[in-house]
């Protein structure tokens, strides 16, 4: 069974937000509008917050794309009173919207604060007339989050079955990875020693967010400042 994971090279991320837009379109993520966003109500399965460090003239802006870490030891799943959020066989942390009662215990338990709640009935701008038919639209009052584009995995599996072959690397990548213009994001099976992600995850540059909590996140980051370390491009 594969163990899907992601590696994000922070050297390559220029904060363009293409992944944020791609995710929003791919997953029918509702648009909160400026007012609600200012109140902390916006939903964005992936975010690229900018962190400004230092003071003028020595100022530096850093970007760190943040999405669900799909922890191997997720703090959010244990606390769910209805088992609506759970980790599936392939290590993806999933959310069943119809059985979520909206208690927001999982959103509090997540140390990465990457679970989102639908405060209001989801809305989209009028101009947007196209929805991704593969992804369910979430009702008001439930929690949602990044699924690593799980629907793409299902599609890839079906395609591979039709073609009577095993799933290959690159068959399944989430929308954010696919859309990254600087190719800063990698996706694949962490248990496959040959895969790009498993090799990069072993790199000396690799780290994970809040690793000390023991959540075993499956999103790895490569630290900045060592752009060329002999990696195969």
């Amino acid at each position, binding site marked *: 069974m594969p163990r899907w994971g992601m590696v994000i090279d922070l050297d390559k991320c220029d904060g363009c937000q293409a992944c944020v837009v791609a995710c929003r379109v791919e997953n029918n993520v509702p648009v909160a509008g400026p007012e609600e966003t200012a109140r902390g109500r*916006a939903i964005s399965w992936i975010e690229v917050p900018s962190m400004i460090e230092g003071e003028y003239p020595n100022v530096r802006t850093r970007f760190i794309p943040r999405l669900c870490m799909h922890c191997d030891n997720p703090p959010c799943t244990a606390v769910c009173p*209805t*088992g609506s959020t759970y980790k599936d066989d392939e290590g993806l942390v999933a959310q069943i919207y119809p059985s*979520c009662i909206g*208690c*927001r215990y999982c959103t*509090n338990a997540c140390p990465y604060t990457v679970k989102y*709640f639908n405060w209001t009935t989801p809305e989209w701008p009028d101009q947007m007339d196209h929805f991704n038919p593969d992804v369910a639209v979430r009702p008001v009052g439930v*929690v949602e989050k990044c699924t690593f584009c799980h629907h793409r995995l299902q599609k890839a599996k079906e395609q591979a079955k039709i073609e009577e072959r095993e799933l290959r690397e690159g068959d399944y990548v989430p929308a954010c990875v696919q859309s990254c213009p600087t190719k800063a994001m990698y996706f694949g099976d962490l248990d496959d020693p040959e895969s790009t992600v498993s090799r990069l995850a072993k790199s000396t540059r690799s780290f994970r967010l*809040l690793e000390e909590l023991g959540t075993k996140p499956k999103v790895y980051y490569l630290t900045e400042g060592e752009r060329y370390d002999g990696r195969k491009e």
Partner: protein
Amino acid sequence: MTEGKSSHQRGAVLSGPGLRTETSHSRYAAHFEDAELDLIQPILTTGRGFYRTASVLGVVAAWGLFAWLYQLWYGLGTTGLNRPIYWGLYVVNFVFFIGISHAGTLISAILRLCQAEWRRAITRSAEMMTVIALFFGIGSVVLDLGRPDRVLLIFRDGNIRSPLLWDMISITAYLTISSIYLYLALIPDIAILRDRIPRRRWLYRPLALGWTGSEQQQRYLKVTIGVMSVLVIPAALPIDSWVFAMIIQPMWHSTILGPYFAGAIFSAIAALLIVMGVIRRAYHLEDYLKPIHFTNLGLLLVGMSLIWFYFTFAAHLTVYYGGAAKEQTVFFSKLFGSYAPLFWATMATNVVIPLLIISNRRTRTVTGTIVAAGAVTVGMWLERLTIVVPSLANPRLPYAAGVYHPSWVEWSMTAGFLAMFILVYMLCSKLFPIVSIWEIREGRETALAEARERIEGYLPGWEVLRARPARDDRALQN
């Protein structure tokens, strides 16, 4: 069988041989009837003050109901909650109501088990507070759900690993046990009402379960109440705090948080004192709820205040000294940051005010105790707020920090819930005696003799004196 007859029997049954209750019983016989009338009076007649208070509370409750419908219609977006502060006033209210409930019965059960004689006038009001507050505690959680329509899914898909489920199980158990406990102790009183208020026989007759006060019934009641007052104590242990302590939020994830919610007992004593003050005044029961009751509970309140302070001090000192970065952020925002006014207000209301008022003999009056209790009640609500919100406002990843301003919907519903709670309590006090008639009567009939016998049991060398009954009285006088 008439009540008078059954009270005779009870006197005989409970007093046992060799005690001088029969004479005291006949001496006080006339007063028994008065006592019953005093305590039944609030049920028989309802003054204008009651209706006036009830209508004000009714308006507030109706406003709260409107706010709830508004929230149901538009979703939780009508609250001030956001990411990352996913929990706010509703969860604070939940912990608060569970807090005052988790101890109402505990106080009554512990005092009963300790055979504290002064309990007799306060057990009923404490037990009633427990059962009613529990419903509002459970209600607060339902208010907080994004999908209250799906709440029953917990029964179908319940995940036992979730502390919320532990809560549900423990609260259900506690509600069941404390309801039975309340009801058991009500049965003899309901039988009195059944015999005295013919127009409400339809209500009291089935509820009295054919109570006649026979010797066998008395024995069964005594045993079951005894068993229930033991059972209720483990069921009352605060589990709700584990909802917070189990997850790795800074300052929630600590071993002290479970026992810290023993503050529940603290808040319950305070709430009980307020309730007693109101009952005493409104129903003219000054002769039943005497200054000694307020003094005793007031001293208990100060004791709990000091324990609470020790817990708070321990929790914060540990965090400060340990110096872990994420915990420190929460610590400083609580003590010196945006939550500092709330935190220090809690310290004033929970420690300084009760200590100043109650440790001073001159201010340790009924009014003084109630003022201190009022401060503690407000303080314990604030304390829950400063536990729930600052931790959520400062999550581990700093760029998700947030602020929380409760919306009018949340305030309205909080006010509405409080009003509804008081209203239901008032209505219950119109249906059932708010001071236990039979326990007071039992006290008058047998307590003196029982206490005497108990004290005699402590006294060294008493058996020798007792063997010579002729010198008994002389020994006592010396």
